[in-house]
């Protein structure tokens, strides 16, 4: 039954995509409205709150969806769209890293922002600090965290998007959590 629902849902998404590629603006708008939040949110948090980059990545993802990539229906549509988003984020990230030391890519950067104690009392600013620290993690730790806590996905769904095992998702989240705790130890009382 579950499989049947997936097939039906994927078929309707395939139809929607097909209409989109035929230039049907209403269908394109529908596709965009249904998915913009998840794509933009992943990109925004991936780039530590950089709205310009997140907007650019979001636009690229949808243009790819509309023009180039074939959805074969062999995975859930949302898994597929997350996968494209993740790849686009990594591609974009690589572009900007090309002229930097590669250690930056494999290692950790310092949190982008430093805030005063007073500011930290404000929830929004704590979130911004968390966002900055998450963005400084290696992508292999960053992506499972984003998919888990921004999108609320299960380990199995994350494994589907990242094309790895559930065990890998589990161990990367484990490591990611501990890194966050180490870097944001001073916020222990805020949580």
């Amino acid at each position, binding site marked *: 039954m579950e499989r049947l629902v997936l097939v039906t849902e994927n078929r309707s998404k395939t139809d929607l995509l097909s209409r989109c590629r035929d*230039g049907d603006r209403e269908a394109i708008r529908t596709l965009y409205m249904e998915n913009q939040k998840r794509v933009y949110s992943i990109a925004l*948090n991936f780039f530590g709150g950089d709205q310009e980059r997140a907007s650019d990545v979001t636009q690229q993802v949808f243009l790819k969806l509309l023009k180039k990539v074939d959805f074969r229906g062999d995975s859930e549509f949302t898994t597929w769209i997350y996968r494209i988003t993740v790849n686009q984020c990594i591609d974009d990230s690589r572009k900007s890293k090309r002229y930097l030391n590669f250690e930056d890519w494999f290692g950790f950067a310092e949190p982008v922002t430093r805030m005063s104690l007073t500011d930290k009392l404000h929830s929004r600013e704590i979130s911004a600090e968390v966002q900055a620290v998450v963005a400084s993690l290696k992508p292999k730790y960053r992506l499972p965290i984003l998919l888990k806590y921004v999108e609320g996905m299960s380990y199995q769904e994350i494994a589907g998007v990242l*094309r790895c095992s559930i065990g890998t998702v589990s161990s990367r989240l484990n490591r990611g*959590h501990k890194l*966050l*705790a180490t870097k944001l130890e001073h916020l222990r009382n805020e949580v």
Partner: protein
Amino acid sequence: MKERHYKQQLSAFADQEMNKEDRQVIAEHLMNCDECRREYHDVRLGAGLASRLEQVDAPESVWRGIEAELNRSAPRLEAFSKPSWFSLRQVGAFATAVVVVGLLSFFVYNGLFTGSRTMYVSTGVPANPGPHEHNVTIAPSQTTEPSGTTTANRSDQQLPTSADTPPAVQTDATFFPVETITGTPKIGDAAGGGRLAVGEYLETDARSRARIEVAEIGNVEIAPNSRVKLVGTSEKQHRLSLERGGLHAKIAAPPRLFIVDTPSAAAVDLGCEYTLDVDQQGNSKLNVKSGFVALERDGRESIVPAGASCFTMKGKGLGTPFSTAATPEFERALRNFDFGSGGSRAVNEIVNKARAYDIITLWHMLSRVSTNDRQQVYDALAKFVPPPLGVTRDGILSLNKDQLERWRASVEDAWFE
């Protein structure tokens, strides 16, 4: 007896991503193990902090950007809209038009209106000419068919081809639009942008740059001092030849649809963005920004992923891909291996200097080194990317294709992680 800890499972435990029995075991363990409990508190802190991340709507400007991009490419999309969009009346009108054009072409071609050709029948002898044909001679360049040629055969050879179809279809199939970015690029002898037809060259001088629109799949920016030819374009393949200079391609299409020939290799697009430079000697350097490009020559292939480069040398063939962040020493050793007389010494140097981001190079080297040298390349690569399940040392050393391919997939995963 050594006590078992559960540090690796603590996230799954906190997120309730395990079955009830396992949860019970870990819960009991946490009550008695200070070490794991401390870790669990950290995991919970990390999870609590991560929960602060939020979903956010994209700004309206994103949609406007998408719309603007769609409007820019709308005419081309509409030109290829599906027949299902046509009303029955339109389909009927279109079909009638096709029949009329076809008949007109047929009659014109066979001289019924112009009388310029001889008709043949299936017996192989000229048919009786119509009255309007008596005073018309066949032009010198035309030849009559040999005896025995049938109408059917002749039709197969000379019925209107795609080159005879209406202009809109013909132009899409035989040229790429060219836009001048700066200066005055030349197409053939004409200056300025316009159309690059199959067989024509586009040339830029030191001050000019141009952009070629490649069908509907992307564009190619031509750098100054370049010479590029449109070799062919069809639904199955679009092919340019870069004789010298540079280009920057942004292509989003199924693999192998877009190819650029250079004097030393062919760059086969696998869905990507890349820069390709060719020097005066015909050597080239490829730099991939996103996706993959395959460099091919004489049955040999280098698959270059985003973040990697590759040299080719005229007369010496393909180089090995390397990370754009490779050290100069590593690059020098690799060039010595690829195009010099480096041999085992170069292999040794490469292996010793290899770092995590040289895994693409190491994988390619497996099949390019001698059996003796392969062992140390294997060890170096295994240090960074352990061979996946089912891939063995013996299998790799004997160049088992399946195992090489499986290891390549793991290397790729590690590369993009």
